[in-house]
C-alpha cells in the first residue's frame, strides 16, 4: 500500500529533475544554461561601451527603460572577444545579488534551442579538458548524443567577482601612451 502511494510521487520528482536548458553557440562551442534563470532573449541591437572597464564588460544596453550590463563570457573564459554578427543575441539572465535580482545580459553568437535534459543524462564535469574553471561548470549534459557544458550561472556571472575584477582592473590600468 505504502509503496504504491509513494511511487507516483517519485516519478513526479524524477520528471522535475529533467530540467529545460537553452543551448547556444559561443565561439563554435555549444553551451547550455538552465532556463529558469533566463528572463528573455533579445537580438543584439547595439550597446554603449563603458570606458576603462575590463574587456569582459562589453557595455550596457537599454532594456525597456532599465540599463542592463552586457557581459562577454567568452572573454571571461579567457578566450577571444565575441564578434558582433547578424546572429548575435543577448540572453538576459536574472542574477541574485545581495537579496536583489539584477539583470545581466550575456552576449552569444547565436541561440539554438530549448532542450530537456534528464538528471541521469548529466555527468559531473571532467577534471580537465574543458579549458574552463571547474566552478563554472554545473555538469556535462547529453544533448542529441553529444555532451555540452551546462554553465553554472551563479559562478560565471558572480556579481561580486566580476565587480572585483573590474575594480582592480581599472585602478591598476596602466597609463596609455
Amino acid at each position, binding site marked *: 500500500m505504502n509503496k504504491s502511494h509513494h511511487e507516483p510521487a517519485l516519478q513526479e520528482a524524477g520528471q522535475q529533475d529533467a530540467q529545460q536548458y537553452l543551448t547556444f553557440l559561443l565561439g563554435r562551442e555549444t553551451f547550455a544554461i538552465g532556463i529558469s534563470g533566463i528572463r528573455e532573449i533579445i537580438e543584439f541591437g*547595439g*550597446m*554603449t*561601451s*563603458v*570606458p*576603462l*572597464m575590463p574587456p569582459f*564588460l562589453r557595455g*550596457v*544596453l*537599454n532594456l525597456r*527603460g*532599465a*540599463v542592463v*550590463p552586457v*557581459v562577454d563570457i567568452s572573454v571571461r573564459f579567457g578566450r577571444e572577444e565575441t564578434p558582433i554578427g547578424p546572429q548575435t543575441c543577448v540572453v538576459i539572465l536574472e542574477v541574485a*545579488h545581495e537579496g536583489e535580482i*539584477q539583470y*545581466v545580459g550575456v552576449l552569444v553568437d547565436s541561440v539554438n534551442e530549448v532542450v530537456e535534459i534528464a538528471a541521469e543524462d548529466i555527468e559531473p564535469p571532467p577534471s580537465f579538458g574543458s579549458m574552463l574553471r571547474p566552478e563554472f561548470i554545473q555538469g556535462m549534459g547529453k544533448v542529441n548524443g553529444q555532451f555540452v557544458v551546462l554553465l553554472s550561472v551563479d559562478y560565471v556571472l558572480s*556579481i561580486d567577482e*566580476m*565587480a572585483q575584477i*573590474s*575594480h*582592480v*582592473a*581599472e*585602478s591598476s590600468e*596602466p*597609463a*596609455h*601612451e
Partner: protein
Amino acid sequence: MDLSKAKDTFLQEARELLQQFETLLLKAESASLDSEDLGALFRTVHTIKGSAGLFGFEAIVSFCHTVENVLAQLRSGTLSLTPELSQLLLLCRDGISRLVDDAEVSETPLVEVPEAERALQDALASVGVHEETPAKPRSIPVATMHADVDDAQRWHIRVKFGADVLRGGVDPIACLRYLSTLGTISGMQTLFPSLPALDELDPETCYIGFDFTLTSSASLAEIDGTFDFAREGSEIEIKSLTPVAVPAAAPAPDNQPEPEARHAEPVARKPGEGKFLKVEAAKLDRLINLVGELVIAGAAANVLSVNRNDNQMQEAISTISTLIEQIRDGALNMRMVPVGEIFQRFPRVVRDVAHELGKDIELRISGEETELDKSMVEKLTDPLMHIVRNALDHGIEPAAERKSSGKPTRGKIELMAYHESGSVVLEVSDDGGGIRRDKVIHKAVERGLIESGAGLTDAQVYHLLFEPGFSTAEAVTNLSGRGVGMDVVKKNIEALRGEIEIESREGQGTTMRLRLPLTLAIIDGFLVQVGPSQFVIPLDMVLECIELVTQESRYRRYIELRGEVLPYIDVRDIFDIHDAALPSYRYIVVVQYGNKRAGLVVDHLLGELQVVIKPLGKLFRGAQGISGSAILGSGEVALILDVPQLVQVACRQEKEEIEHHHERSHTEHACGK
C-alpha cells in the same frame, strides 16, 4: 480598528516632541528659559503622555507623569532649572526615547517602568518637592491629574462627529474620555441632531455630537489634537471662555507665567501647521520614477516630431514638455527637506562628547533651512556625525593647549549648509589645531600608503585621511571610531555623487566641505559626442563651449582663456576612444566644479537635455569618470560624466605617463642605448 497607522503617527510625533524637549534643555545651558519655553517644555512631555495613554503605553504614561510633575514645578517657578536638573532631565528624555522605541517594536507594550527609568523617576522624585511622586502613578484617577495645575483655562467645545467616524475605527465617546484626562469636563450635552428612526438607522453611521465646557491647562493644539483621528467630516469648534489677557506694558515678573494670549484665539495654530500631508516615501518614489519615465518618453516624442518636420506637432509637444518639466520639479520638490533635520541632532552630540572629552566646545549652526533630497538626508547623517565627532576628538585641542597658543579656551565647531551652483554644500569647521601635514605624511608612509610626501599638494595629503587603513585604532578613539574610518565617510559621500574638500591651516582649524547634488533622480545635462559614444555632462557644471584650436605642441594640454590658463582633458584620450575618424573641428566644453575649471575636448556638441539618472549597478562600481547612465530619446544609453573624477583620472594618467617617460629615459641612459 487598525491602530498601526495611528501608532506610527504617535511614534513620529513623540520623537519630534522629544527633539523639541532636548533643544529647549540645551538652550537652557546658555540662556535662561523664559516662561514660554518652560511652558513648551511642559507641553512636550504632557502631549507624549496623553497620546501614549490612547495606545495603552502605560510605562510611558507613568514615566512621563513623573517628569511632567517636575516640569510643572519649573513652570510655576517653585523649582529652578539647575545644571544638575537639566542633566537629569536630558537623561529622562533618553529614557522616554527608549520607552518609545520599545513601544515601536514590542508586541505587548510595557506596563511597568523598566529599572533604568525607574531609577530616573526616583532621582526626579527627590528633586520635585511639593507633590509626593507616586510609585504607581497609574493608581491616580486620571481626571484629577491636572487638578493641581493652576493656569487652567475654560474652553467651550462643540463637536459634531462625521458620519464615517465609526467606520474609521474611532469611538467619539472614547475620544472625549481622553479629552477629559486633559482637564475637567462640565455641562456635557450629548446631541443627536439628525438621529433617524430605528428602522432607518444605519448602525455603523455616526450621529453623535457634544457640547460642553472643558477646564484645562492644555494648549489649544493639544485639545484640538484629541480630534485628530476623527477630523474627517466632523465639525469641531473650540472657543476660549477665558478673557483675553491684554499684554501688560511692564514685563511680567519672571516667576509668573505670562498668560498666553494666543490661546484665546479660536484657531491658534502656527502658520502652516496641520497643513502637511504625510505620504509614504515609497509612494513618492514611485511617482518620481514615473515622472522620470515620462521625461524619457517626452524626449522620444520630441525627437519624432522634429524628424517629421511637423510644426503643429512640435508645438504641442513643446507644451507637453513644459508641463512635464513642471510636474518633475513639483515631484522632486516634494522630496526636499530642510537640512535642519540632520543638524538638530548635533547640539546634543557635541554637548555630550565635549563633556566626555572634558573639552569646552561651542556649536554654531547656520543654514538649517537649506533643502536637499530626503533620501540623501538619511544617508548623510552618519558621515556628518563622523566628521563632527572627528572634529571634536582630534580637531579641537585640549583647553590647556589652546590657552598656551593664545586661543580662547572654548573651542568652536560650525555646521553650515548652503546652495552653490546647483549643489548643496555642508561644511563642518573647527577652530582647532588643523591637520598637520608632516604627521599625516609620516603616518601614510608608515602605513605603506605612499612612499614619501614629496610633490604632494596639501589637498592630496589631506585626502590620505580618507584612505582605507589610514585611521586605525591608534588614531581613532572609541568616540569617533565606532569601527568606521574616514574612508567609509568618503565612500558614503561618493555614493551620493558628492565630494569632500578639506581646507586646513595649521594652528587655525579645519574645514571639511561636502558638496552634494541637489537631487539623485533627474539632471539637466549637456549632450556631447566623442567617437561613437554619447556622454552627458551635468549642465550646471558647463560654463561655455569653445572651438578647439589646434595646438602647436602636441604635448601641451592647456589653452589660454581670457588671460587664464585652462587645462583640458581630451575625452578621446582619457577613455581610450580611437575607433572613429577624428573630425576636423573639435570643441572644448569649459566646466566648473567646486572652485576649479577645466576643459573637456569632445567631437560634437549635441545640446541640452533632461535625463533620468540610471545607476550603472554594482558591476561598474569601479568605473571612473562616469557617475551613471541615462537613456536618450532615441533609446540609446548615454553615460553621465563625473567631472571631478575625470579630472582625477586625468591627473593620475598624466603623472604615470611622466613617471613612465622619466623611468624609460633613465633606463635607456643606464643601458647606454
